C-alpha cells in the first residue's frame, strides 16, 4: 500500500459517508506521491435516514479542520446552535413543572482542579465552609428548594433557560462565550459536505449501485462491482451503508449485538413542525420530554422544529405512540395543524456490531450500530471513528491488523459507555406510572458496570477515576449533571480529607464567581433566534 496511491472506497453517501470522506480527505492530500485517492460511491435512490439532527461541540473542530466556513455551513444546512439537552419529566413525571434538568456542554467551573459536586450543598443555606466535616448528604432536601446543580456549578443552564445563544455576532466563527454544537438538517449536511469534499478536497463521487463484493484468497476485499461503472478497486473499504451494512454485515456476516434488554426503545416516529411565526424563539438546547413509554425529542432549526417520539414497542402500540406525539405537538401548534403533519416511522435496532473493522473493511455510522438518539451519540461516533481511521491509517496489511484490533477495542468500549450512560437517564427515575419506567429500573436490565458505578456513587461523587481514558465519550461531569439533575443522593464522606476546609472555601468562591459570570453573560448574549437571523444576514467573522 505504501508504494502507490492508497485507494479508499467509501460505500454510502449519507452524513456518515461524507463526514468520513471529509475527515480523511482533509488529512491526506489527494495529489502527489504517498497520497490517497478517496472515492465515495452511493446508490442514487437510497434515502438517507437523517435522524441525527444534533451534534456535539466536536463538530466545530471537525468542520474547521475540513476548511468549512461556519457561516456557509449554518446557512446551507439550516443550522441552529445547541448548548446541551434539557430533560423534562424524567425524574417524577406528571405535571410537575419543576421536574427538569439540563445536561449542558460546558463543564462545571474549575473542573480540571476541583470537584464542585462534592461541595454543592444548596439545601442548608449555610456558608459551605461553616458546615461540619461529617458525612454530608447531597440533595437530601426536596428539589424545589435548592439551587439546581447545573445552575450552581456552571453558567450554561442559565443561558439555555432564557433562550439565549452561546455567542454574539461579534464572536468569531467557531469561537464561543459558552461551548456549543449544532442542531441541523442531516440531509442538507450530506449535500453540503458532498459539495465541499468533491469541489475542494478532491474526493471522487460516483452514483451507482453496488452489486457484488470481490474478496481475495485471504478474505480481504479487492474490489466491488457496480451496475454501471463496473469494477472499483480499493485498499480499504468503509461501510457507510446505514442499517443495511452491505459490507460488514451482509458480506462478512459480522453480527449486531442486540441491546434491547437494556435500552428498550426500538421505534420512533418523527415529524417536521412549522413555526407559527417566522420570528418564533428557537431553543438552543434539545428538549427531551419523558412519556409513558419513551421520550419525545424537540429540536429547533431556524426554519422548523424536528419532533419525534422514540418508544418501546413492548410498552405501547404504534397508534398510541402516534397519539402521544400528536398530543405533544398540539400543545404548541394546536390540534388542527398537528393533524396535518405526516409522521415518518423509523425502526431502531438498539445495538452494535461484534466488531467494526474486519480485514480491510471498517463500518462507520449506522452500519456499525445505533441506539436511540438521546445525547446525540450518532454523529459524534462517526467523527471519532473517521478521526481514528485517519490518524492511525495503516501503511500495510500487518499494521492494518493491529490498528483494526485497537479500533475494535476502542469502539466496543465506547458503545458500552454510551449504553451505560443512556441507561443512567432511566434508572434514577422515581416514576412508577407505567411498566416502561418500572421495567427500566429492574436490576436485570441494568448492565453490571453501571450497577457498580451506581453503588460507588452513593458515597463518592463521580470524578476523573470514573473516566479512566483520556478520550472518553462522556466526562465525569456528564454523569454528575444527570445524577444530580435526577435528584440522586451521594452521601459524601469528607472525614478523611485533610484539605476539606480549604477546598470548600475555594468551591464557595468558585460558585459565587459563577453567579457573577452568569449575570454578565445574560446581559450581553442575544436571543438564539436573533443571532440566527444575524448569521443569515451578516455571517460570522473569521477573526
Amino acid at each position: 500500500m505504501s508504494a502507490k496511491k492508497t485507494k479508499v472506497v467509501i460505500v454510502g453517501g449519507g452524513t456518515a459517508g461524507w463526514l468520513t470522506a471529509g475527515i480523511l480527505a482533509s488529512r491526506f492530500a489527494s495529489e502527489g506521491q504517498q497520497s490517497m485517492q478517496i472515492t465515495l460511491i452511493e446508490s442514487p435512490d437510497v434515502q438517507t435516514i437523517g435522524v441525527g439532527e444534533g451534534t456535539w461541540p466536536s463538530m466545530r473542530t471537525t468542520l474547521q479542520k475540513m476548511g468549512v466556513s461556519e457561516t456557509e455551513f449554518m446557512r446551507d444546512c439550516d443550522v441552529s446552535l445547541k448548548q446541551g439537552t434539557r430533560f423534562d419529566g424524567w425524574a417524577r413525571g406528571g405535571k410537575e413543572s419543576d421536574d427538569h434538568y439540563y445536561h449542558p456542554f460546558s463543564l462545571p467551573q474549575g473542573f480540571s482542579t476541583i470537584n464542585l459536586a462534592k461541595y454543592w450543598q444548596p439545601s442548608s443555606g449555610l456558608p459551605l465552609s461553616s458546615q461540619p466535616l461529617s458525612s454530608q448528604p447531597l440533595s437530601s432536601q426536596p428539589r424545589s428548594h435548592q439551587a439546581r446543580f447545573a445552575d450552581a456549578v456552571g453558567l450554561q443552564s442559565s443561558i439555555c433557560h432564557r433562550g439565549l445563544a452561546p455567542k454574539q455576532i461579534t464572536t468569531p466563527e467557531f469561537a464561543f462565550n459558552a461551548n456549543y454544537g449544532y442542531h441541523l438538517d442531516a440531509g442538507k449536511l450530506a449535500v453540503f459536505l458532498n459539495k465541499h469534499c468533491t469541489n475542494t478536497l478532491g474526493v471522487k463521487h460516483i452514483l451507482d449501485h453496488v452489486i457484488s463484493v470481490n474478496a481475495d484468497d485471504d478474505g480481504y476485499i479487492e474490489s466491488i462491482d457496480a451496475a454501471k461503472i463496473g469494477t472499483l478497486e480499493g485498499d480499504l473499504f468503509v461501510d457507510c451503508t446505514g442499517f443495511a451494512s452491505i459490507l460488514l454485515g451482509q458480506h462478512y456476516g459480522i453480527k449486531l449485538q442486540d441491546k434491547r434488554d437494556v435500552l428498550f426503545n426500538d421505534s420512533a416516529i418523527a415529524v417536521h413542525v412549522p413555526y407559527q411565526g417566522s420570528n418564533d424563539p428557537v431553543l438552543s438546547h434539545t428538549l427531551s420530554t419523558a412519556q409513558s413509554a419513551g421520550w419525545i425529542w424537540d429540536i429547533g432549526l431556524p426554519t422548523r422544529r424536528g419532533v419525534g417520539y422514540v418508544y418501546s414497542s413492548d410498552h405501547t402500540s404504534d397508534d398510541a405512540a402516534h397519539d402521544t406525539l400528536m398530543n405533544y405537538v398540539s400543545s404548541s401548534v394546536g390540534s388542527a395543524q398537528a393533524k396535518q403533519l405526516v409522521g415518518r416511522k423509523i425502526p431502531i435496532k438498539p445495538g452494535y456490531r461484534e466488531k467494526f473493522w474486519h480485514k480491510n473493511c471498517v463500518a462507520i455510522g449506522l452500519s456499525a450500530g445505533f441506539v436511540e438518539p438521546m445525547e446525540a451519540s450518532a454523529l459524534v461516533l462517526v467523527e471519532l471513528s473517521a478521526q481514528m481511521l485517519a490518524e492511525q491509517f495503516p501503511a500495510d496489511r500487518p499494521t492494518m491488523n493491529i490498528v483494526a484490533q485497537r479500533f475494535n477495542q476502542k469502539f466496543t468500549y465506547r458503545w458500552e459507555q454510551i449504553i451505560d450512560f443512556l441507561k443512567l437517564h432511566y434508572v434514577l427515575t422515581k416514576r412508577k406510572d407505567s411498566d416502561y419506567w418500572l421495567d427500566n429500573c429492574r436490576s436485570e436490565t441494568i448492565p453490571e458496570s453501571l450497577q457498580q458505578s451506581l453503588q460507588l456513587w452513593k458515597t463518592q461523587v463521580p470524578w476523573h477515576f470514573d473516566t479512566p481514558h483520556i478520550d472518553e465519550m462522556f466526562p465525569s461531569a456528564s454523569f454528575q449533571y444527570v445524577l444530580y439533575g435526577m435528584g440522586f443522593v451521594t452521601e459524601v464522606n469528607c472525614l478523611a480529607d485533610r484539605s476539606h476546609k480549604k477546598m470548600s472555601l475555594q468551591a464557595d468562591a468558585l460558585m459565587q464567581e459563577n453567579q457573577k459570570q452568569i449575570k454578565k453573560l445574560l446581559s450581553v448574549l442575544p436571543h438564539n433566534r436573533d443571532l440566527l437571523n444575524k448569521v443569515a444576514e451578516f455571517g460570522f467573522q473569521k477573526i
Partner: protein
Amino acid sequence: MTNHALVNLDDHKDTRIIDTRSELYGDNVMFTMTFPFEFRNIQQCYPIFFHKNSETGALYPVALFGFKDKENLFLNSDGWSAPYVPLMIKRQPFFIGFQKDQDDPDKRSAKVAIDMDSPRISADEGEALFEEHGGNSEFLIRATQNLEMINAGNQHSEKFVAALIEHDLIESFSLDIELSDGSDNQLLGFYTINEDKLQELDGATMESFNKQGFLQPIFMLLASHSCMSTLLGYKNATLV
C-alpha cells in the same frame, strides 16, 4: 427611536446647529469610525485600529481617543485639542438618509438627514442651515460635502477591510497598559494589521492593493500606532 428628519427649508428654516466640541454634545466617545482616505490626517493625531460593529459583527477602522467607555482624552474645556477632527465627529448631527424615488421605488437617493434629538439643535445659537433668502448656508454645504465623503469613504473602507480579511491580515490583540498610578489596564476588543503576514504578501497582491488604494492606508494605520504613547501621556496626565 431617534427622531430623524430629512433636511428641508420648510421644516428647518430657523434650525441652528451648535458646532463646538464638548461632552455636552456627546463628543465624549472612546473612538470613532474612520475611513482610509482620511488615515493620513488621522495618523498624525490618533492610533487607528479595527473594531467590530456590535449589531453586525463587521470590522471597521476606528480612531482611538481613550481607554474606557466615554473617555475622550482629546476633549477639554476649550474644545477639541488635536489639529484634525475626524469626519464622523465633524458630521454630527447630520447623517445620510435615503429617500425613495417617487417614480421608481427601487431607486433611492442619498439625502442629508438630521437627528432632531441631538443636543446640538438650537433655535438661537450656532450655525444656520439656510440663508435668509432660502439658499443653503455655507455650513450646510460643508456638512453635505462631509456626508458625501463619508458615503464614498465607507464603500471603499468595506472593500479595504474585506481584502485585509481575505489575506488574513487582521488579527485581534489585547494591550496591557501600566499607568503612572501603577494600575494595570487592558485594552480589549480591538484589532490590528498582522505585520508578519503583511511582509509575506506577494508582489501581485501588493500591486493589486496599491491599485485599489489599500496599500497607503495599511502603512498609515501602522504608522498611527506611534500615537499610542501620546494618548498614554494624556491619560497619565489625568491621573496626576
